[in-house]
C-alpha cells in the first residue's frame, strides 16, 4: 500500500490552515453548503491531493463554462463513477510508484459525489471501491437531498414528502415522495467490515469537518464520509440560514454526527450530548418548517417525522446508524 500523509488532527479553530484549495468565483447558489464542504474538504487535505468530482452541482456550478475554482488537480467523472474514479486514480498512483514510473510520495485521492450520483446510481461502484484495502482513498458524498443540479428532483436521499419537481405538491397528492431517506453511510460501514473509517459530517461544524477529512485520509485504505448539506435552492430558505439549518438538523436528532473508526462508533458534538442525556433534542418541527419544501406539511406529517426520529433514538441499537433493535426473548 502507498503511504499516507502527515495530516494531524487540528486543535481548535485558530489552527485551521489558512491555505485554500478551492477559491472564489464558482457559480453556486448564495449560501451553498456543498460549496463550503468542498472548500473545507480540500483545506483539510492540502495541496498534494487529486480530486475527482462526479457530475452534479459541485461539477456544473463549480467548473462552470470553462473556468475553475480548484487550486489542486481536479478531474470530472461521470454521475455514477465516484467509486470507480477513485479506484482508477489510486490504482495508477500505486502501480506507477511501485514500478518506478512515478516518484514515490503519499498523494491524497478524493472522489466526491452527490446523493443522487452516490447513493443511487453509483452505489455499486462505491461498494466495490470500499473493498480495495490496498488503496488509500476517500469517497465523500455531499448530500443536499435531491438531484439538485438538474433543478431539484427527488433522489433516494430526499426526505419523505419534500417538494421537488418529481414530487410536486399537488391538489390530489400532497406528499408524492413517499420514500424514507436511505441510510447510506451505515449501510456501507456494515457491508464492508474491512473499511477502517466511515463518518457522517456537517459543514456547519467546520473544525469537526476538517478533522474527519484528515482522519479519513490518514487512516489507510478506502474510506467514506457522508455530509449533510443544506441547500437554499432545493430546500427553499433565505441563504443566510444555511449554517443554522446545518446545526438544527443535528440538534433535532434527525441527523446524527458520528465516526466509525476501526469498528468502534463514536458520536460527535450535539449528537453525543443528546445520547448522554445532557441535551434534549429540539422538536423536528423547528427544522422542517423553516424550509419551503415542507411548507405544505400538516401536523400529521410532522408527527411522522418526529416519531421516526424518536424511534431512532429510543429503539435503535445505534441511533441514526443501525435501525435494528434486539428482539426480547
Amino acid at each position, binding site marked *: 500500500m502507498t503511504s499516507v500523509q502527515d495530516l494531524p488532527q487540528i486543535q481548535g*479553530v*485558530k489552527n485551521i490552515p489558512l491555505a485554500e484549495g478551492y477559491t*472564489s*468565483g464558482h457559480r453556486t447558489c*448564495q449560501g451553498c453548503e456543498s460549496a463550503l464542504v468542498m472548500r473545507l474538504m480540500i483545506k483539510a487535505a492540502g495541496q498534494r491531493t487529486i480530486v475527482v468530482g462526479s457530475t452534479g452541482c459541485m461539477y456544473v456550478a463549480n467548473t462552470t463554462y470553462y473556468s475553475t475554482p480548484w487550486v489542486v488537480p481536479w478531474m470530472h467523472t461521470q454521475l455514477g463513477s465516484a467509486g470507480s474514479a477513485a479506484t482508477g486514480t489510486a490504482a495508477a498512483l500505486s502501480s506507477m510508484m511501485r514500478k518506478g514510473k512515478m516518484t514515490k510520495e503519499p498523494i491524497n485521492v478524493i472522489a466526491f459525489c452527490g446523493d443522487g450520483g452516490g447513493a443511487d446510481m453509483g452505489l455499486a461502484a462505491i461498494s466495490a471501491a470500499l473493498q480495495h484495502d490496498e488503496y488509500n482513498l476517500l469517497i465523500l458524498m455531499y448530500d443536499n437531498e435531491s438531484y439538485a443540479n438538474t433543478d431539484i428532483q427527488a433522489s433516494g436521499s430526499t426526505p419523505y414528502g419534500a417538494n421537488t419537481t418529481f414530487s410536486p405538491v399537488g391538489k390530489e397528492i400532497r406528499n408524492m415522495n413517499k420514500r424514507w431517506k436511505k441510510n447510506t453511510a451505515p449501510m456501507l460501514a456494515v457491508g464492508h467490515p474491512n473499511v477502517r473509517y466511515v463518518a457522517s459530517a456537517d459543514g456547519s461544524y467546520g473544525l469537526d469537518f476538517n478533522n474527519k477529512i484528515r482522519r479519513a485520509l490518514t487512516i489507510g485504505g478506502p474510506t467514506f464520509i457522508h455530509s449533510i448539506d443544506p441547500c*437554499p435552492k432545493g430546500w427553499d430558505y*433565505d*441563504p443566510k440560514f444555511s*449554517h443554522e439549518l446545518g446545526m438544527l438538523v443535528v440538534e433535532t436528532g434527525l441527523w446524527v454526527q458520528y465516526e466509525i473508526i476501526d469498528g468502534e462508533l463514536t458520536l460527535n458534538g450535539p449528537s453525543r450530548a443528546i445520547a448522554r442525556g445532557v441535551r434534549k433534542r429540539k422538536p423536528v418541527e423547528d427544522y422542517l418548517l423553516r424550509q419551503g*419544501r415542507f411548507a405544505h406539511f400538516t401536523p400529521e406529517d410532522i408527527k411522522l417525522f418526529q416519531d421516526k426520529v424518536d424511534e431512532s433514538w429510543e429503539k435503535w441499537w445505534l441511533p441514526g446508524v443501525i435501525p435494528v433493535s434486539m428482539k426480547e426473548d
Partner: protein
Amino acid sequence: MSTVAVEVIYRGIFQRTLARNIVRSIVFAARKEGKIGTAFGRYGDSPERNGIPAKQFAVVADNAEELEETLARYEPTEVDVTINVDDTMCKGIESWAWYGLQPINQLTKANGTLIVTSRQDADSLIEDIHQKDTAFGLSISKSTVSFSGLWVYKDDHTDARILGTLCNVCPQLFSFDSMAQAMAEQGNDETKVASARRAYDGATTRQVEPGQGSSEVPFTFDLLGWQAMEEGLVIRAQGKGGGFRGGDEGFQPDRNEVFKKFSTRSMRPVINFETCIKCTLCWLQCPDTCFDVTPDGLYDANMESCCGCGVCEAVCPVPDCVTMVSEADFNDNSSQYEAWQEDKPAYQTWMTALVDKQKAESRTHGFHHIGGYAEDIAASEDA
C-alpha cells in the same frame, strides 16, 4: 407591427416564478389582440442558482411567420423593453464565466424602455447604469424588491405592477384592457388587476440621453479559439494565493478572474473591525472563500468575490459586528479593511450609519417561515 421583444432580468431562483408570471402574461395578453407570442428562459442560465442574474423573454408578433425569425435562438439580439426586477442589478450582471459584466441595458433598443423595481430615485439608478450610445427611457416601478424561492411564492403584486407599467411604456404590445382581461383569466384576483391599473396610471418615464450614466467600462473577455485552447479538455488550476495584499503575513487566495460573482449581490456585509473578536467563523463558514485574512488576524470580505449570501452575518457571535446592508448604497468593490486602516473614525461613522439604515429597512431574501411572506406584505408600504 413588427415583433416586440421583452426581457425580464431577475435574480435566479428567488425571482424565477415572478419572471415566469410576467413573460407568460405578456403572451396571454397579446393573444387577446390576436397576436402570437412565445415565452422562454435563456438556456445558458440553467441550472439557475440563487441570486445569479438570469433572463427570461417574451416575444410577440403579428403572425407565426414573423415570430419564426426569433425562434431557435438563446436570446433576442435586442429588446423593446428590459424589465429589471432587482435594482441592484443596474450595476451590471455577470451570468456565467467568460460572460463578463454586461450592462443592464445591453439589449435595450434605441428609444426602448428599462423598467426597474426600486425604491431609489431615477438619478441614483442612472448613476449605476452603464452609458449607452443611444437614448432610452427609464421607468421605475416603485416597490421593494420581491424575493421568493422555488416552492413558496411571495405574491406581493410585483408582477402586476410591472405589467401595468409595461402597458404604459410599450403601448404597441397591447392595451391595458387586454392585459387586465388576460390577468383575470389566468386566475389573478381583482386586487391584483387593481394594482396593475394603479401602476399603469401612475407610470412615468424619464428619458436617459446617450452618454448619460456610469462611465465604467465593464469587463469583457475574448473567447479562445480551438488552437489556443489546451488539448484534453484541460485548463490550468487557480493559483495558490499568498500573503495579504502580496505581503508576507495573513492570507489572500487567488481568485477566479473569468467569473467574479460580485454581481450576484443584492446586499453586502459591512464589518465592525473594532468589535470583531477574531473567532474565525465568518472566514471559515463562507462558501465563497471571500475573506482575506489580514496580518493582524482580522477578516476582510473581498468585494470582488462576495456574493451576498449573509451566512457571515448569521454566524458572527458579536451583535452588529457583521451586518448585511443594501448593495444599492455602494459604487465600487473597494476594501473595507483598507478604508478602516486609512481613517478609523470616518469608517466607524460610515459603517454605523449603514447598519442603522439597514435596521430601519425591510428587505427579505427568501423563505423564513410559513406565513412570513404574508407578514412582509402586510407590513410593507408597497401600493
